[in-house]
């Protein structure tokens, strides 16, 4: 960054501005909620990576011990086939997190790019894109994903693609709205006067100022995509056994709701905690990345 050389050359400058990431880390560390969110998210990621290695085989069936309530042997109980629920949650975390995070990330990359371009240029491209987006938004998110997954065929990659594509219209809508609002601000005229290219304006001026909206969208979309994966898998359009996910566990627990409510409860809690984690993390990130936030 430029300031380093300037300050190095002139010894009179008393305080050297810290590089940005240090400042961001410092500000992040000062927010207990954000740190909690980070711990939750990192915890689940580690759980997904290490759980299947450390815990018992999630697919090992034990017909002597079906639908057992939580005990020392089976911390979270067993399911209808006598499989250990805790091990299965660890195993399912991989698919659920992958589906949630990857599809959302993909949707953000595509949606933000298209949204910024259409919102920035307006014109006929915008009209056409928004027509398509409106049509897509007329379908509920899941119906669209189901249709797409049915065409693509059942696999984790296709689930991610189907979920990503169905999220894209909403992201486009948000990014376009932000682009349209921010491009009217005077600092964008200033950038034009600087001689900035359109791409520079979109990605250096508009996108950083829309970051808050994108982060909020991500924190909402990740849990929704985790549930979406569940539905696809439930319909046989998602991952196939022996692979599993929280969503599959949740949906298959439905038939035992009366006898073994904990079967639905634990994957439900896992999903809720993940959602909470991403939410807190997102809020924290939005704040620390905003230089106007004073804390």
């Amino acid at each position, binding site marked *: 960054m*430029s300031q380093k050389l*300037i300050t190095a050359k002139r010894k009179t400058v008393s*305080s050297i*501005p*810290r590089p940005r990431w240090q400042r961001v880390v410092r500000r992040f560390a000062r927010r207990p909620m954000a740190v909690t969110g980070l711990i939750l998210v990192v915890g689940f990621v580690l759980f997904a990576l290490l759980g299947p290695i450390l815990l018992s085989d999630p697919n090992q069936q034990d017909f002597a011990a079906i639908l057992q309530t939580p005990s020392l042997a089976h911390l979270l109980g067993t399911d209808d086939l006598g499989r250990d629920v805790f091990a299965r949650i660890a195993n399912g975390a991989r698919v659920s997190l992958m589906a949630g995070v990857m599809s959302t990330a993909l949707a953000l990359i595509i949606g933000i790019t298209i949204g910024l371009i259409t919102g920035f240029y307006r014109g006929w491209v915008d009209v056409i894109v928004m027509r398509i987006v409106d049509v897509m938004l007329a379908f509920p998110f899941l119906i669209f994903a189901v249709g797409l997954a049915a065409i693509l065929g059942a696999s984790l990659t296709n689930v991610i693609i189907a979920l990503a594509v169905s999220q894209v219209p909403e992201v486009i809508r948000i990014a376009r709205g932000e682009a349209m609002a921010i491009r009217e601000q005077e600092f964008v005229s*200033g*950038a034009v*006067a*600087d001689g900035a290219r359109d791409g520079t304006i979109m990605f250096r001026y508009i996108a950083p100022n829309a970051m808050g909206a994108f982060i909020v969208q991500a924190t909402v979309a990740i849990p929704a995509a985790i549930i979406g994966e569940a539905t696809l898998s439930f319909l046989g359009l998602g991952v196939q056994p022996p692979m599993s996910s929280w969503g599959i566990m949740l949906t298959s627990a439905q038939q035992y709701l009366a006898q073994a409510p904990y079967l639905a409860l634990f994957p439900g809690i896992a999903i809720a905690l993940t959602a909470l984690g991403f939410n807190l993390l997102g809020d924290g990130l939005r704040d620390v990345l905003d230089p*106007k936030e004073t804390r």
Partner: protein
Amino acid sequence: MSEQPVLEVSNLVKHFQSGSRLGGGRTVVRAVDGVDLTIGRGEILGLVGESGSGKSTVGSCIARLTQPTSGTIRLLGRDISTLSRREMRPLRSEVHVVFQDPYSSLNPRMTVGQIVTEPLRQHHRGGRAERNRIVSDMLERTGLSLELVGRYPHELSGGQRQRVALARALVLGPSLVIADEPVSALDVSVQASILNVILDLQVELGFSCLFITHDLSVVEFISDRIAVMYLGKIVETATRAELFRDPQHPYTQALLSAAPMADPSSARGRERIILSGDLPSPTEEISGCPFHARCPVAIDRCRTEVPRLLGVTSPEHQSACHLVTAENGAPHIKQGDKNLVHNAS
């Protein structure tokens, strides 16, 4: 050097379409309606007028932040009025802008250092060390401590922000700076320091400047020449001394008489003209002189015939009023013929 002006604007028009497409109530806002301007090398031209008279629109057309409806804009002899965004980009090193609100005109996510470096980056000027040298030099010239390079705009005072905006506008060494009310949002003491900096830098760097303001005392302080704008048109232009000595257009006279003077004895002694009515809406098409509805000395001809901007008394002093004649000079609205006064209140 040739005597070629830095900027030559002729018959600039900018009409905005407004109103809903559905309601059928589509109206045209005649923000700028035929403006001619010339700015010589190293000259500061002050553009004054009431809010809504089209000053900012003129500025942003010249900087090509807005596409003019028609007319020509010659920057250093080259017509830029129809250039595309891409064609215009290399020429942006020759013209930059300073806006009224120094807060909204700076990217809130960039540091001062980044903001001032940005024009150099866009025009691929210098290497890193070279850029740092230019930027520190510019910050120093605008009176900013180098400690501020790492700060964000919201961490600066209004005056400091405006200095950053100025440093950024001047860092490429443009021939023309368009300053749109650069001190209007500032307190007097801060305003004073910014005006001083602008004048100092103008002498050091030699740029020309279109200085837009609604404040007559500011325009009198800073300008070499002044153009008065009313309802999308220039109604009078003259050198600073000449305009204050002999305001010819009735609107200029009213403006001068209404301007607050920070001197109780003369402020109270003078006879002031209070115009009736407000600035007409720029959506209505006005026949004849744009000022006739408020002009205390309007005659019948004013309602039908548009007065042209002419140097009647001298080529350097132009005004657009039927009553300015070579024989009698300008009308004086304070002592206007009783029969003519029908708009004064």
